[in-house]
């Protein structure tokens, strides 16, 4: 993804934030220990605020248990 929801190119910082968010989503599909599974989901919920409020992504995460 190279643009936000308004069609603006992503800044470097936005691209990095989106990478973190994507990595957390990917981790939700892994078979992790409870300590990791729960805290990854907690972190993903917070990162969703970042990418959604910056207009980078809009989606819901209930299929990932978030």
């Amino acid at each position: 993804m190279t643009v936000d929801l308004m069609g603006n190119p992503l800044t470097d910082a936005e691209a990095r934030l989106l990478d973190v968010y994507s990595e957390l989503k990917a981790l939700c599909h892994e078979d992790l220990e409870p300590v990791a599974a729960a805290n990854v989901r907690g972190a993903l919920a917070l990162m969703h605020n970042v990418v959604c409020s910056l207009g980078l992504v809009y989606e819901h995460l209930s299929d990932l248990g978030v």
Partner: protein
Amino acid sequence: MLAIVAPDRWNRLGSDSPYWNPKTETLDRERLEALQLAKLRRQCEWAAARSPWYRRAFAQSGFDPDQLRSLSDLQRLEPLTRAEWMTSQAEHPPYGQLPTIDGAGAIRVHTTSGTTGMGPLRALDSRKDWSWIAEMWCYAVWGCGVRPRDTAYIAFGYGSFIGFWGLHYAMEKVGVLNVPGGAQSTEARVRQIIDFEVTVVASTPTYALRLAQEARSLGIDLRESSVTRLILSGEPAGSIPVTKALIEEQWGAKAFDTAGMTEIGTIMVFECAHQPGGTHIIEDHFIEEVLDPDSLEPVDYGERGERVVTSFGRGAIPLLRYRTADLVCRVPAARCSCGRGFDIYEGGILGRVDDMKLVRGTNVYPRAIEAIVREHGEVDEFQTLITREGIRDEITLRVEMKPDWDASGWDRLARELHKRLGLAFEGLNFRIECAPQGELPRFELKAKRTLDRRDVPMGAGR
């Protein structure tokens, strides 16, 4: 060896910005609406795919999310009412058919107070949704100038009513030292505010006055305390100028209005540090329409109408075109000098579409009564009582004065209130009564100062 980060460094993180989210708070109208449309399409697709209620509602309205070309296309969807939501909940307990998840996919449920006779409304939230609820409060907290160096006191019961729960987590997110004020007497709360050198207090407007009253009785002058800001919510009074001025005078602090509702889980408007006489709509997370409550046609800027909200936040309960019954007057963002692109509700929430009382053919608004009564700083508490005597409606203002007030001034005050209320309400003849000390109820949440007893049989208890 780990580096020690000085507290001051944390205090400076991002704190130069007056906006919590500069990217979207300063968008121009065209870009803001482009962002809203992108979110709206996805939210409608989500609702159609996951919510049994919306799947049916879309089919009945002939509404297809694929056909959304502009924000005005949303108007093709019939607004949702609270009664419909409650009926769905009653028919499909415990949560109804609006939610996209069941209790197993949620981490919280909050309820309304259930005063409508249909029981409480139950609102589910997922982990992500709950995090978003706090995020909306962050716009308000940061926007009114609260920073990590502050200490906050939330004077709230921390029960099943959603109230200030989101604010609590927002304070933590911002990095504020938080003092939860649940399960405390008013005296204990006042003492904690002083003892912890609190700088920000959150409460309803009514309870802010109650705290000030309690402080006076304890010999504490809050104007000499560390408190610099109050965050108000839960009642329209936070934007009634005289009430707000009274709160600011008694606390020696600035008061900032916010408003929210259980149905959206959080706040949708906040007053910024520039205090423009109203509250900014958080428009990157909500579409707020203002409609004529009878025709459901949009009204222009500067005209009063009913708030109808579409929220992008909750995935567990998508809320599209929800009729709030809140009375508002929307004006352009440019009315404020803060630089935000978010439009403003002038005067905040002006009242409820359904809280107007008709007395002898005159429309009586509780908020307008409060605005007049609060001009008199010697009044401690008040109550409006509407009764029917024979075939005639009567309206009585009961006034409780401050303990140190000189009773010899009563006749003059009663005459003044009678005159001002008559002028405000088409000559309506208000009876003015002085209530004994401590008789009128005090409120922590959602003050109910207007009692309509016209349907109560003679002899029934009050």
